[in-house]
C-alpha cells in the first residue's frame, strides 16, 4: 500500500490538472508575450535611432522604457503604436505581425506627452472619439465614457471645454480617452513629464492603481528613473538606440550590468578596480572582500557602490575604517545628508542620516555584499586601420603619424590592422580645428578621480577618453593622439 502511494499522488495530480485545465490555459495566456519586438532597427536618414532592439512584453505587465533623451525610447514606443515603421525587424502584438499595420488598426492606444486632446471637442466628445468611430450605440457609449471619467476621477467634467482644464485634469482626460477603448496595451509617452512634482507623485500612484484594476499591459516611456523604479514590474534601460538591461526594478538597481545603467539609475560611485581573485577586489589602493566570482585573476573591472551603502563614522575609530578621508562637502537633502569624502585621491558620495561637516576626518566601511563588480566592456580603444607608409597609419577616417613600423614583411596584411590607444592617451582639444578629427561628447561618467568620456567622432565611431578636464555633454572637441601612443598590431 505504501509503495503505491507515489502513483496515487501522481494520479491525483493528473485529475487535478484535468479539472483545472481551463485555469491552466488561462495561466499560460497570462505568461504569453503580448508584444514581441524582434531585431528592430530604425534609421532616420543616416542616423540610427534604434539598433537591433529585441524585447518581449508579457500580458498584464507594467513595463517602463527608461533612458536619457535621444536614446530611442520614444521611437520604440512610436513603432509599437504605428506612427513610424521599422526600417528592419518585426513587431508582433498578440502573436500577429503588425510591423506594417497602420496605427488605426492596432489594438493599442496611446497617452501622449502633451495630451493631444482635440481642442474643438469637449471632454465627453474627446473621450467618445474612438467609440463614435466604432459606431457604438449611444446609450452604451455614454455608459462607457462615464465609467472612464469615474476611473480617472473626473466625474461631472464631461461638458467642460478641454482648454479650461488644468494640466493634471487634461492628463486624466487623455488617459480616459485611451482606456475607454479597452485596448490590450496602453502606451504612455512620458505622460507625467509636464506636471509638477506633487501632482506627478499622485498621478503615479493612480496609474499604478489603474493598472491593477484594468489588468491590461502598460508600456510606459520615461526619462525619470525614480518614476520607473516606483511604477514598473519590468524596466528596460535604453541608451543610444540599444537596450542596456531588462529586469525588475530591484535587479536594475542592485545589479546594474554596466557603468551606464549604474550611473543612470540612482546615484552611484563608479570606480576602476582590479579583481585580484574570486571574492577579492582592489580599488582605491586597497583590497576589499566582495561576493562576486568568476571574473578571473587580475582583471580590470568597474566597481559600483551606492552612496547609501557606505557607512561613515568619525575617524577616531581608526581600526574599523576600510577607507579614511576628509569630508569635502555636506548637503542636507531632506531625509539624509549627502557628503563627498575624499579618500586617497578618490571622491566618494556618501549618504547618511548624520551630518559630518566639511573638513572632518572620517572613516568609511562598505560591506562585501554592497560592492558590485561589473566586467569592463573595454580596457582600451580599439580601431580598425591600415598602414599608409612606415610612419603613418589610417584609422577613424584620418591619417595619424605613428612610431616607425617595419613593413618589410610582405606576407603580413598591412591593410587590415588593429589599432589600440589607451583611454588616457587621447587628447581632447577645446578648439576643434586643432585636432586631427572632431567629435561630440555624448556621455560623461565620473570615476572618483577622473572623468570617463564617450566621444562620438565624425567618423561615427565612439572614442573613449579618460581625462581630468571638465567637459560638458554635447561639447564639440578636437581629437588627437601622439605618435608614440598608437599601438599597431597585425591581425
Amino acid at each position, binding site marked *: 500500500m505504501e509503495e503505491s502511494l507515489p502513483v496515487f499522488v501522481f494520479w491525483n495530480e493528473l485529475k487535478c490538472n484535468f479539472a483545472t485545465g481551463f485555469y491552466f490555459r488561462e495561466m499560460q495566456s497570462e505568461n504569453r508575450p503580448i508584444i514581441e519586438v524582434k531585431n528592430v532597427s530604425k534609421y532616420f536618414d543616416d542616423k540610427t535611432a534604434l539598433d537591433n532592439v529585441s524585447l518581449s512584453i508579457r500580458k498584464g505587465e507594467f513595463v517602463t522604457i527608461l533612458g536619457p533623451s535621444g536614446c530611442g525610447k520614444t521611437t520604440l514606443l512610436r513603432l509599437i503604436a504605428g506612427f513610424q515603421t521599422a526600417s528592419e525587424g518585426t513587431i508582433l502584438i498578440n502573436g500577429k505581425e503588425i510591423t506594417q499595420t497602420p496605427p*488605426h488598426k492596432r489594438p493599442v492606444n496611446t497617452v501622449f506627452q502633451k495630451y*493631444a*486632446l482635440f481642442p*474643438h471637442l469637449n471632454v465627453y466628445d474627446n473621450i467618445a*472619439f474612438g467609440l463614435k468611430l466604432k459606431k457604438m450605440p449611444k446609450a452604451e457609449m455614454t455608459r462607457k465614457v462615464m465609467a472612464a471619467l469615474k476611473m480617472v476621477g473626473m466625474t461631472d467634467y464631461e461638458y467642460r471645454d478641454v482648454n479650461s482644464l488644468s494640466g493634471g485634469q487634461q492628463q486624466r482626460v487623455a488617459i480616459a480617452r*485611451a482606456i475607454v477603448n479597452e485596448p490590450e496595451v496602453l502606451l504612455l509617452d512620458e505622460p507625467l513629464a509636464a506636471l509638477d512634482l506633487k501632482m506627478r507623485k499622485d498621478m503615479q500612484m493612480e496609474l499604478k492603481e489603474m493598472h491593477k484594476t484594468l489588468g491590461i499591459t502598460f508600456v510606459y516611456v520615461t526619462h525619470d528613473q525614480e518614476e520607473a523604479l516606483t511604477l514598473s514590474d519590468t524596466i528596460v534601460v535604453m541608451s543610444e538606440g540599444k537596450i542596456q538591461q531588462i529586469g525588475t526594478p530591484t535587479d536594475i538597481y542592485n545589479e546594474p550590468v554596466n557603468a551606464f545603467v549604474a550611473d543612470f539609475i540612482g546615484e552611484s560611485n563608479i570606480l576602476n578596480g582590479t579583481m585580484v581573485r574570486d571574492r577579492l577586489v582592489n580599488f582605491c589602493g586597497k583590497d576589499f572582500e566582495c561576493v562576486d566570482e568568476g571574473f578571473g585573476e587580475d582583471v580590470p573591472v568597474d566597481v559600483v557602490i551606492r552612496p547609501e551603502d557606505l557607512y561613515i563614522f568619525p575617524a577616531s575609530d581608526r581600526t574599523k575604517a576600510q577607507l579614511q578621508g576628509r569630508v569635502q562637502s555636506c548637503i542636507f537633502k531632506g531625509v539624509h545628508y549627502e557628503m563627498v569624502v575624499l579618500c586617497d585621491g578618490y571622491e566618494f558620495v556618501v549618504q547618511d542620516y548624520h551630518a559630518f561637516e566639511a573638513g572632518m576626518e572620517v572613516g568609511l566601511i562598505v560591506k562585501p555584499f554592497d560592492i558590485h563588480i561589473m566586467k569592463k566592456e573595454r580596457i582600451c580603444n580599439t580601431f580598425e586601420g591600415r598602414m599608409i607608409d612606415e610612419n603613418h597609419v589610417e584609422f577613424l577616417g584620418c591619417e595619424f603619424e605613428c612610431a616607425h613600423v617595419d613593413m618589410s614583411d610582405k606576407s603580413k596584411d598591412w591593410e587590415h590592422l588593429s589599432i589600440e590607444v589607451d583611454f588616457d592617451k587621447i587628447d581632447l582639444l577645446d578648439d576643434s580645428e586643432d585636432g586631427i578629427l572632431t567629435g561630440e561628447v555624448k556621455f560623461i561618467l565620473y570615476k572618483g578621480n577622473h572623468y570617463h568620456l564617450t566621444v562620438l567622432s565624425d567618423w561615427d565611431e565612439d572614442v573613449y577618453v579618460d581625462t581630468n578636464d571638465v567637459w560638458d555633454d554635447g561639447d564639440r572637441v578636437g581629437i588627437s593622439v601622439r605618435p608614440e601612443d598608437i599601438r599597431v598590431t597585425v591581425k
Partner: protein
Amino acid sequence: MNKLRLFFASRKSWTLPYLIFSVVFVVIPLLLIVVYAFTDEAGNLTLANFSKFFAHPEAVNTFVYSIGIAILTTVGCILLGYPAAWILSRSSSGYSKTLIMLFILPMWVNILVRTLATVALFDFARLPLGEGALIFGMIYNFIPFMIYPIYDTLQKMDKSYIEAAQDLGASSAQVFWKVVLPLSMPGIISGVMMVFMPTISTFAIAELLTMNNIKLFGTTIQENINNSLWNYGAALSLIMLFLIAATSVFNTDGNDNSKRGGEPW
C-alpha cells in the same frame, strides 16, 4: 499739456502720420458717404435713395447676382486652395518654400495687368469671355489669399492631434473630416474674409473679362457716381458696406464657435 508731451515722447507718436492720413482719407470719406446717402441733391434729409434701390429690380438683381458670383468665387477658392495648402504644409521645408514662392509670385504683378493677360489668354485659346471667364479670373486673382491663411493654420497644427486620431481608430479620411478640417476652420474663415469681401465690390475684373456684358454691383456703383448721381451711388455703397459688415460679424461669431467646440459630428 503734459500728456501731449508724453505722447510725443513715446513711440505711439509714430502712428500720428498714419492717424492723420486715415482720418482724412478713410474716416471723413466714410462719413461723407453716410451724409450723401441720406440726403438729396439739394441737401435735404431723405430716404429716397434707398427706396429707389429697392424699387429698381435691375439694381437689386445686380446686387444678388454679385453676391452669387462672390460666393461661387469663394467656394472655388476653398475647393482649389485647401488641397494646395494641405500639400504645402506636408512637404519638406525647402520644397514647400519653392512652392509657396510659385503661389505668391503672381501676386507681384498688378491685378489689372494680370486680368488683361487673362483676357489675352482666353482670346488665344479661343475661349468665350463671359460668366465662366469672370469666375475663372476672380478665382485666379484671389486664390493666394485663401491658400495662405489655410496653409498657416495647417502648418501650425500640432501633428500629435492627427496621431491621436489615428491611434483612436480613425482612417485617413476620418482623420481629415473629424480633426484636420475642424481645426483648420480659423484659417478657412480668414481666407473667406479675404476673398468674399473684395470680390463683392470688384468691377474692373468684371468689365475686362466679360467685355462689359455682365454688371456686378461694383460696376453699378461706379456708373452712378460717374454719372454724377452722387447721392444714389453713396446709398448703394452704404448697402454694400452693410453687407460686408454683416459677413464679418457672422465670421467672428463662427470663430468663437469653433473655439468653444461646436459639434461637427
